[in-house]
Structure formats: C-alpha cells, structure tokens
C-alpha cells in the first residue's frame, strides 16, 4: 500500500493551502492515548518503586491496589484505543494508515529522514513540507507506538493474565506463550519496564519536536492535532 509522504503534494502544500489531514477519531484517539500513556507511565513507575508505606491496618488501606487498578484501567483504555485506531486505519483516510506502515523502499522517504536529521543538526535552514507526518516523526512514532505500544500490550496483558489466572482471556491470549518465550515472568517485567522508558523518551522528544515544528516549520502542527487541518506557509 502506498502511503502519502511528501510526494505529489506540491500542489497541496503551496503556501496558504489548508488540507484536512487528521480526522476526528484520530484526534480524539491521540489525546486519549496521550493521557492513558501518561497515567500508565506514572502508575507503572509506582508499581516498580512503590510510595513509602502507609500506616494503619492493612484492611483499611488499598494504596498499592488503587495504583495497580489505575494502571490496569489505563491499560484497557490504551489497548482498546489501539484497536480502535487500528480499525480507523482501515476505514479512515490514507493519513490514518501512516502510523502503522513504513514505506521502507521509498527512497524519497529515506531522503526525507536524512533531510530532517540535517535540519535538527542545523545543517538545513528549512524543513520540507509534509501533508502527513514528516518521515523522521513517522519512523519514531511507528517504533514507539506501533511497535512499542504493541509490545506493552502484549507484555502487559501477559503479566495481567498471571494475576487473572488460567481461564481469563488475557492468560490464554498472552500469558500462556509470552512467559515461556521470555523464560520467566521476571524477565517480562524487566522488559515491560524498560520499554516503558522507551515510550517516555519518545514522549519527551515528541512534544519538543511538535513545539519546535509548530514554531519553526512552514506548516501548522500542534493545531493540526486539534483542528485536524494543516495549513502551509511560505
């Protein structure tokens, strides 16, 4: 499947042009997804390194329980969102597909990555114009969200299924093969935890890049993820 990158878009990207890129479900998903990941990262961290002990009777407290509950709730939001987004990739516009596919044998795409890298290292004065994601962002999003998110879902539900026990769908679907694949549960925890850091790093760079593009590129960026439209400047 061909994915629109910079390509033919010359017409569309002419200064003053406004294109509808991110349909409402994509935008909605983006912000729900962003929120769920923040919740997951914070609660995940607290699962691994819990807060100082609380006092009183055990039966009067459920702090760790709530933290874990929040993690699992956000995890369901994240995972269902992921599935819905996948569905929208099929039925939505062609930009909606971009997140899930890399045009690996498109030389122009590679050239775009090269160009954006040079831009970040101040060798280029101007970014190129893109209707969809710029190729570098595209690559990072794919790695962090498509691959990383899937990894978190698979490992996360494998861990979840351990507690939910045999008979639960998560156990059948994930725990049953993921734990043996990694050798044991502890390794799955470690990798789930490491990948969480990977996603955190993506978010840091992603937000910075979004801001930077907003101010320094010749196209709208943040506002596009709000309104759905992208307007090009000269």
């Amino acid at each position, binding site marked *: 499947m061909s994915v629109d990158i910079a390509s033919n878009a010359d017409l569309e990207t002419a200064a003053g042009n406004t294109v509808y890129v991110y349909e409402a479900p994509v935008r909605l998903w983006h912000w729900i997804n962003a929120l769920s990941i923040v919740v997951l990262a914070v609660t995940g961290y607290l699962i691994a390194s819990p807060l100082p*002990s609380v006092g009183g009777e055990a039966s009067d407290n459920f702090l760790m329980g709530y933290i874990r509950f929040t993690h699992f709730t956000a995890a369901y939001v994240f995972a269902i969102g992921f599935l819905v987004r996948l569905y929208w990739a099929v039925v939505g516009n062609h930009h909606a597909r971009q997140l899930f596919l890399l045009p690996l044998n498109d030389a122009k795409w590679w050239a775009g990555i090269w160009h954006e890298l040079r831009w970040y290292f*101040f060798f280029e004065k101007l970014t190129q114009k893109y209707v969809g994601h710029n190729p570098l962002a595209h690559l990072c999003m794919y790695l962090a969200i498509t691959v990383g998110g899937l990894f978190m879902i698979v490992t996360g539900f494998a861990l979840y299924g351990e507690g939910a026990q045999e008979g639960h769908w998560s156990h059948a679907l994930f725990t049953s093969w993921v734990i043996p694949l990694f050798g*044991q*549960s*502890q390794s799955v925890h*470690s990798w789930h935890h490491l990948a969480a*850091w990977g996603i*955190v790093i993506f978010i*840091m760079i992603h937000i910075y890049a979004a801001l930077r593009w907003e101010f320094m590129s010749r196209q709208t960026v943040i506002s596009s993820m709000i309104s759905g439209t992208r307007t090009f400047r000269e």
Partner: protein
Amino acid sequence: MASETFYEVMRRQGITRRSFMKFCSLTAASLGLAPAFASKIANAMETKPRTPVIWLHGLECTCCSESFIRSAHPLAKDVVLSMLSLDYDDTLMAAAGHQAEAALEEIKKKYKGNYILAVEGNPPLNEDGMYCIQGGRPFVEVLKETAADAKAIISWGACASWGCVQAAKPNPTRATPVHKVITDKPIIKVPGCPPIAEVMTGVITYMLTFDRLPELDRQGRPKMFYGQRIHDKCYRRPHFDAGQFVESWDDDGARKGFCLYKMGCKGPTTYNACSTMRWNGGVSFPIQSGHGCIGCSEEGFWDKGGFYNRVTNINQFGIEANADKVGGTLAGVAGAAVVAHAAVSALSRARSGKTEQGEK
C-alpha cells in the same frame, strides 16, 4: 506373588476394598474408559509389582534428595519401602562400585520401558562431560543410556529443570538441563531449589496412583503445584495491596509482617506452592520467616540481578543494568539534549531572525 502390590499398600494405609474399587472406577472414568475397565484397573493394581525408580545424580548439591526424605505425607519411608522400588540411587543404596553398576544394568534390562527415571542435577557438556564422572565415564552418557528405556523422566529441582547454580553465568562446565539433552521422552519438571518435599512425593505418587503423567503447563511443570505464583496466595498480600512494606531489615514493618516487595521479594514472578503448602510439614516458608522469595523455582533465577532488588537486571545490558538504570539514564540524556537543542535553536533563530526575516 510375594511383592506388596499397590492394593496391599492402600489396604495397609487403612483404605477399604470398597473405596479401593471406587478409586478404580474413578480412575477409569477420568481416563475416559468404560466402567468395565474399573475391574481391570483394580486387577492390575492388585497384582502389579512396585514401579522401579532409578534416581541419578548429576551436578547438584543433593538438597533435592534431602528435601524428598523430609516428606511428611506420605512418609519417605513408606514411599521407598511400599510405593515404589528405589532400585538405584547412589546417595542411599547399600552397594557401591561394580555392584552398584550391576544393579543399574539389571533394572534397565529387566524393566525396559517400565521404570521411572528421576534425575537430580544435570549433565555438564564441556570437557567431554568430564566435569561429572560416574564409573569413569561422563555422567551425560549414563543419563542418556538410562533415559533410553525409561517410561518417563522426572527432573527434580532447579538443577535438572533449568540448570540452577552451576549453570549461572558464566556456566563454566556448560551444565545443561535434562530436557535439552533428552528430547524424546516425557519429562516432568519439578523445579525449586529444592522443591517442597510433599510436592516431590505428590508428583511421584500421582504418577503411581493414576498411572499417567500429571497435567503439565507449557514449561513442563505439573499445574497442580506450579499453576500459581507465590504472590497469588501469599498471606502478606493484604499488606502489598495496602501499600505497607518492609522498608529495611528488622524495621517496624518487618516485625509486623509487612510485604517484602521492597526487599526484593520475587513472589510476584515465581510459580511454586510455597505460600499454600509451605515447607517442612507446613511450618513456614521463606516469606513467613522474613526473607523475600528469591525465585528459586524459576528458570535462571541466579542471573536476574541482586536478590534484594525489586527492579531486576536485563542481561543484554550486562550484569549491572536494570530497566531504571538504562531507561532513566537515557531519559536523562534525552531531556538534556532537548533542553540544549532548544537553547541552540532559540539562539540561532534569534541570530538569523534579523537577516532572514519572515523565512520559517
């Protein structure tokens, strides 16, 4: 027929003929056989000699044998004298040297295809196997030969099941778990360092009683004892959920029996029956006596980082690195890079802004 049969053993243990027959029909039913088979099963059990067991030792510490003899129900004595026939076990047998080797040969021949092979420890493969020698030969050869005619194999303990301590990095002898050497036989893994005594006797008596292998999970462990984590049934779990932890040894939380998670407890990732069956006749288990679980029934538990760390190591990054170290460091680097990049961007923009106004 002078040999004490299964039926006689059960009778001696106070089981009536009626319940024996009931047991046989249940067995028939659970095997999916017609009721008529019940009497066949009963007949077999009334006349069948005790199942011979050959117990081999590779690289190990013999704690699995030690654990086995601690069994309270059934008593080790009854297992050995009445339930099975422990025909070869170099730790316990009277004979040695040639006489011991002759016993092994005889049993292999006489009960070809009908004996259970129990393996404690594992074979080293480096140095042509000569890190473990038996009768002047590499242990791995004895293991293979004995496995060839066995009905089934039990891998006792973490050594036989996963490799255990001698297989910990850098595994100088290339100690190798049994299932990686014997690939054509049913193998039941009974991991633990050591396994709980009653789990060991439970597994073996299950096989004798029902004449079949226990139901195994994907990793070859009997589900009945290894289907749940320590954490799932830990009596300190309410403290975990409450967020009440031992923060340091012998602190107030330790004296109150708080959760040992922050002291590195591996209960959340360890499949074993300790928190339900407990040890040595139900007296205690590691957590009840104040130390976290070290995960002794899990594959490679020696190499996951310190026993007192909650966030454990990822070996691909070397022995030192855990997820927070790798991830936190990278996140720090990324954060600093973003700030620096932003500063440089702002600077260069301010500078070029004057000359190339309007161009963005």
